[in-house]
């Protein structure tokens, strides 16, 4: 699990600060709660180009796939909610 999160942490390193903040926070705070379908969706989401992710995560477009659409909403919610558990990584300072 830890290795999987580390691998995904690198996939959350993107070309834009906005995406870095949103994706890393979600990974730190919520990823562990996802079921296997949810974590597969998250990996699938990370496969999209930065520009598409930006459109989705900043609300300029909505993914046609309902699962991704729910995930995008969850990532946005996570940004605005307080921390649920103590996060143990670099994301903590943000």
């Amino acid at each position: 699990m830890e290795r999987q999160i580390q691998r995904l942490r690198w996939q959350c390193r993107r070309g834009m600060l906005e995406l870095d903040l949103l994706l890393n926070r979600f990974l730190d705070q919520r990823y562990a709660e996802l079921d296997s379908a949810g974590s597969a969706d998250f990996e699938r989401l990370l496969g999209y180009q930065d520009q598409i992710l930006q459109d989705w995560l900043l609300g300029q477009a909505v993914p046609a796939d309902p699962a991704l659409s729910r995930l995008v909403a969850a990532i946005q919610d996570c940004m605005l909610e307080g921390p649920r558990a103590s996060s143990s990584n670099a994301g903590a300072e943000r």
Partner: protein
Amino acid sequence: MPAARSLPHRHFDALIIGAGGAGLNAALRLAAANLRVAVVSKVFPTRSHTVAAQGGVNAALANALPDNWHWHMFDTVKGSDYLGDQDAIETMCREAIPTVYELEHAGVPFSRLDNGKIYQRAFGGQSQNFGGEQAARTCAAADRTGHAILHTLYQQNLRAKTHFFDEYFAVDLIRDDEGVAIGALVLDIESGEPLIIEAKTTLLATGGYGQVFRTNTNAFINTGDGMAMALRAGVPLQDMEFYQFHPTGVAGKGMLITEGARGEGGYLVNGEGERFMERYAPKARDLASRDMVSRSIVTEIREGRGCGPNKDYVLLKVDHLGADVVHHRLPGITDICRVFLGIDPAKEPIPVFPTAHYAMGGIPTDRHARVVAPARHGPEEVVPGLYAAGECACVSVHGANRLGGNSLLDILVFGRAAGTDILSYVAEHPNHRPMLDAHIEPAIARLARWERQGEGERVADVKAELRRLMEDHCGVFRDQPTMAEGVEKLKALRERVEGVRLRDHSQTFNTARIEALELDNLVDVGMATMMSALHRDESRGAHSRVDHPERDDERWMKHSLYLREDDRMDYKPVRTKPLTVESFPPKPRVY
């Protein structure tokens, strides 16, 4: 850690570290000429920071209004506050025109005018006829120019058979006894396995280092890796005191709130609800220059008039403009506020703080993108086989301040120039130089250092402290006491890094190790920045000193050079002579 002789080696004509616009444009030129090209990128190439560049590329195409590369050159020299090298600026402004057409032919979907020509928009700092009417010089692919360029270059490189090492982290350059760059030690992030890439030429194209400041607009990847590699190889960094800050970033997060917000009538208030810009700039108020607004915000906070529980930001108000104006004319801000703050800027003010954006300084190069450093025969001796281009380099076309639309241009023109020079270098030096274990050992020692076991401070904690320190002591508020204290604190922090330990020593996808290597890099470029800023006791371009508010051409028309050994400063003259035209002499920079 394995011994030097047991490491695998790969051989290439050219090694390019970094897969943004500069690296990929160089790679394309080389691969198209059938050289063996390796591109090493710590993230998947299309996730490079070039993707975030929205503005566009300046080129005097004269499609919308009359224009001329020589006017573009004048604007760039003036914008640089006369610190830019005029031979490099002439090169950039001339080359801008074929560069844009080359990109167009490669498939970048530039926005068009009705007559089918490339659309060009007006930007601040652009003039016709050497300081006259506004010019329109910026070519854009809607608001995603960087994305379009990066994807086009990546696809073209795949077609040209460039060899990509995706998710490989460059640890250090390898130079032989004569100082020739002969490759690099890199680390496969997935497996944790080190690899030696031997190359006849090496290009550093690793981008900026905004992550050294707590509040910044840069992606997490921008940690100054190439700059720090150059420093460790004994190459100085040039003009590192010149760092562009933007007055209004989202407090605590960093992303930009466009100047358009104040242009539309937005204004700043402090913790007492006062429109404080009226005190600092009675006429221009909230539309005063970037550095004036930035410094005023920080002064309010330093004097205890900030907002919020920690009084560490001010508020940008646009709520009086009405929902219609805010939502329709400032849609980007509305999105950012909603997603990151959970507020509607048409109803609530936005917490802001100055945010670090762009490095004018970097690895010193000539206009062929060859790295130059002081040596026996003068201040600009070529380091054989080593090149740098893009934000990590200082060629220097931006001097003390960069104009909008010139950064994408810089990476494209000098990325291409690097490619051109590498072609002739490799033709003249067709053989690999011998690489001995002794050449590799220093790079391996750097990796081995992070294998030390035991208790120690955490990387994340030291990094957070570094970022705070840089923001407090070398941000937009700069004077001698603040920075002298900053240097001492930074030296102490640098000592502490020796005591930092990793908890996780596993090999596969150990991102903690990568973050530790990045911390080393951030500390080195942070010191370069702070030392250079402390020593330059004048205000020029983006470097503004509260205690020395004037530009001092007599003493300071020169480039700073910081050397890592003994934290030494050196200087070299500005190249004021262009290639074919008359020099532009320094004048007061008023707009």
